């Protein structure tokens, strides 16, 4: 069977056409794959912008805690007594701890608007080592080029040191 096939004239041409077709199909598949894959520079851009904005908003949340620590601790104590309204008002309910439709971090290839908010601010206490820390979580969201929402959570934990300012010991 094989020898009969080789005896037919023009088999080299047919074989080369078959290989050429296979190569062209591979090129088409590769081109489609490259077109559908998101470019790496956009992915890096998204990650970097959201990270910096989230870190900046977390700084503001820490500033709020440093300016009003008593009210935060009172709200936290109320949370332990099953009253969560006050801690929500301190963290999620504060419109000043949000960045909406932020467009200043733009570039020649991307001008998407980013939304950032503080999603949680929780007190961590370790009685064994007498250590206290505050854990602040920020969430950044923006709509990517393919229309999908891209989210990034950034967490920062800061160690706290409570000092009494009572006039007596």
């Amino acid at each position, binding site marked *: 069977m094989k020898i009969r096939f080789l005896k037919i004239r023009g088999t080299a041409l047919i074989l080369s056409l078959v290989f050429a077709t296979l190569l062209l199909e591979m*090129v088409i598949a590769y081109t489609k794959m490259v077109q559908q894959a998101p470019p790496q520079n956009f992915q890096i851009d998204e990650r*970097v912008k959201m990270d910096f904005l989230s*870190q900046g908003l977390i700084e503001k949340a*820490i*500033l709020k805690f440093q300016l009003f620590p008593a009210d935060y601790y009172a709200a936290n104590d109320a949370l332990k007594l099953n009253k969560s309204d*006050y801690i929500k008002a301190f963290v999620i309910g504060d419109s000043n701890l949000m960045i909406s439709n932020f467009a200043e971090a733009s570039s*020649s290839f991307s001008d998407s608007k980013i939304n950032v908010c503080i999603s949680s601010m929780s007190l961590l206490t370790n009685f064994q080592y007498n250590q206290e820390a505050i854990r602040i979580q920020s969430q950044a969201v923006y709509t990517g080029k393919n229309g999908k929402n891209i989210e990034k959570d950034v967490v920062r934990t800061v160690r706290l040191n409570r000092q009494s300012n009572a006039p007596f010991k």
Partner: protein
Amino acid sequence: MTRKNSRNIFIFHRIDTWSGFTLTEIVLSIAVLAFAFIPIIGGMGTSLKATTKDERIVQGIHLAQTTLNAALQFPFDEIASWSRSKGSAANGPWTFGGTVQPQFSYPTTPGVGSLALRLGVQGDYTTVLTIYDEPVQFNLMVYSPASRAIDTKNDPTTWNWTSLENYPTPALRGVYQKFVVTVFWSDKQSGQKFYSLVSYKAKLVE
């Protein structure tokens, strides 16, 4: 003739009649394969150009990221105070870099190292840092410590909470700054490009 001899003669006859490829067939098949490779090589050239363009963008992003990271490491108001000492407005904004190449450094460990920030022209890229003083206000609920002290039922609703909107008034100044780093470069085909990164720094008590 035996049966074995006839089989040998048959095989000998088959080897003798094997055919090969003519020169014309080989030339035509090589020509077809060559035409098939033309779009592949064209695609490779296009992807090489795209990779070079992406590389410049990624380098710009990394430069902006490095610059902003370095700027945020400086103590609060360290960079802006340098501009104020040269006569800039007290409330900003303060711009550094561009055609001028300032260099900031801050000693971290004495005799060992220092924090450095480089702006302005760096190779094909130009970096500009602008610092803005952002007013700060908050919405919060404040409680009454006196009301809490007399609460015997552990009921937070009796602690006399007061809602404060946009407090304090006027807004606080000099405690929160916005850092905007912009990197510029030129692309031969599409002209001037830029990339901006923004972050914030607060005056925190260490």
